[in-house]
């Protein structure tokens, strides 16, 4: 029990210094695992220390340290930082009027996936162009590698999701898409 307690205590100190329970970090120094990534290490630590993560009653007791008044909430908040992906869901809405400036905001997902040419067309990659290529024929792989334009409704949607900054004319140096910003011989 003492040995188990000792190892638990050591791991606990390691866990503390990793920064989860920041307020107890000064008491847990000289730890080899201090610089490691939080989530993986802490998950392992939690398993080994066998501390019930969701239980609010468990509080670390260190010799000579007072129990802080907000012990329960701090544990919960520290627990939530273990699982950031579940609690920080991406916001996919278009903000029409921002809180601070009252301006429209772009949807960043669009900027990361598409390119707007100045003539109004949007360029994109084909979906699946780097997935499971072993089962695709050479012709299919070539088709997927090509850059493709979006249709009219898609272009309109993407224009609505972006602000006018992304519609300005850019004169980059050595832009591979420079000649596509203008249409030629378009009759309608």
């Amino acid at each position, binding site marked *: 029990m003492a040995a188990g307690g000792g190892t638990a205590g050591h791991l606990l100190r390691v866990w503390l210094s990793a920064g989860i329970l920041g307020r107890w970090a000064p008491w847990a120094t000289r730890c080899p695992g201090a610089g490691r990534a939080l989530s993986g290490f802490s998950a392992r630590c939690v398993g080994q220390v066998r501390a019930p993560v969701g239980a609010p009653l468990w509080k670390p007791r260190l010799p000579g340290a007072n129990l802080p008044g907000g012990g329960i909430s701090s544990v919960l908040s520290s627990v939530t930082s273990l699982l950031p992906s579940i609690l920080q869901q991406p916001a*996919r809405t*278009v903000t029409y009027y921002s809180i601070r400036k009252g301006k429209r905001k772009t949807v960043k997902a669009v900027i*990361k*996936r*598409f390119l707007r040419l100045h003539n109004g067309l949007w360029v994109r990659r084909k*979906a*699946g162009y780097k997935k499971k290529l072993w089962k695709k024929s050479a012709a299919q792989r070539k088709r997927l590698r090509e850059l493709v334009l979006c249709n009219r409704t898609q272009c309109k949607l993407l224009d609505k*999701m972006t602000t006018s900054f992304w519609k300005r004319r850019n004169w980059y*140096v050595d832009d591979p898409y420079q000649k596509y910003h203008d249409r030629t011989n378009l009759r309608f």
Partner: protein
Amino acid sequence: MACAGMGQSARCKLKRTFNMEGFGQTEVSGLKAGYYTEEYWVTFTTGTNPSAPALLSSSFCNSVLHAADVSGNGGNKALELLRSLPRVSLGNLRPSPGSKKRERRRGRGRHGGRKCGRGHKGERQRGTRPRLGFEGGQTPFYLAIPKYGFNDGHSCRRQYQPLSLQRLQYLIDLGRVDPTQPIDLTQLTNARGVTVQPLKRDYGVQLVEEGADIFSAKVNIEVQRASELAIAAIEKNGGVVTTSFYDPRSLEILCKPVVFFLRGQPIPKRMLPPEDLVRYYTDARNRGYLADPSKVAEARLELARKYGYVLPDITKDELFKMLSARKDPRQIFFGLAPGWIVNMADKKVLKPTDEKLLKYYSS
């Protein structure tokens, strides 16, 4: 719209509807019996208000119509008549036809009312439509497409506003840009030939070949980038091209010098180009400002040979001194050194005298 006050001038539209039946004056022609509505612009340039506020009567319509009929005469008669016109007030004014359209209020009557343009039932009428791009739970189009770095580092990419030789020729022909002085980005901006936005990652101006065959002006021009054919076209006409680098702060100062001078700060040193641009600006083929002058002369000959024109000798030119005027790599303006403060109010230039400052600004 307020009437003219003392010593001011204003234009307003006067409307008058008056009965012509009692009208007996014969001066005005083209009158018809019945009601006559006249509306036209009246310009008040007088210093005094009309002394006698006349009623909407025969004298008024007479004067007004006479003012309308009078053409030429220096407008004196019109001014005299306007003095006798009544005061412009809210009761005399009307907006010009077609400027104000009737507002269509929803929920009031046959055309704006009933369903009020919302459609029939459903999310459209009830206003519970989902967000833009939502496709009922199916992975939306704009998320199904894989990410690709089209716009990666877009805010670090340098941009150069194009200046075609055709535009340059146009500006010189119209006299907006003076070819007898060295042409700088400041001259081009003052002439409104180009608009450079340093805040949008613009690093200056690039020369473009459009109009190379019609270009015929001898200029000493300094740009930030230039294509080979543009350089050839300028040198063929006996001009000089230089490409130089301006860091964003210097570029902002260069484009808007007066605004900078009003700040009261000393002119900063122009920074040297970053690593990836040093090669460009030390190359004689690009006429870089850091290149060796002898190599630049060689490159001029080479270009003349390549494009098949005779390179005119600028040393024998009368404007040789102007054509060979170049800026120091740390200088932003011609004739002003870094460290100087330009006082616009007192029309003075202040130069530093402290040793440390002089050492810093001359390094």
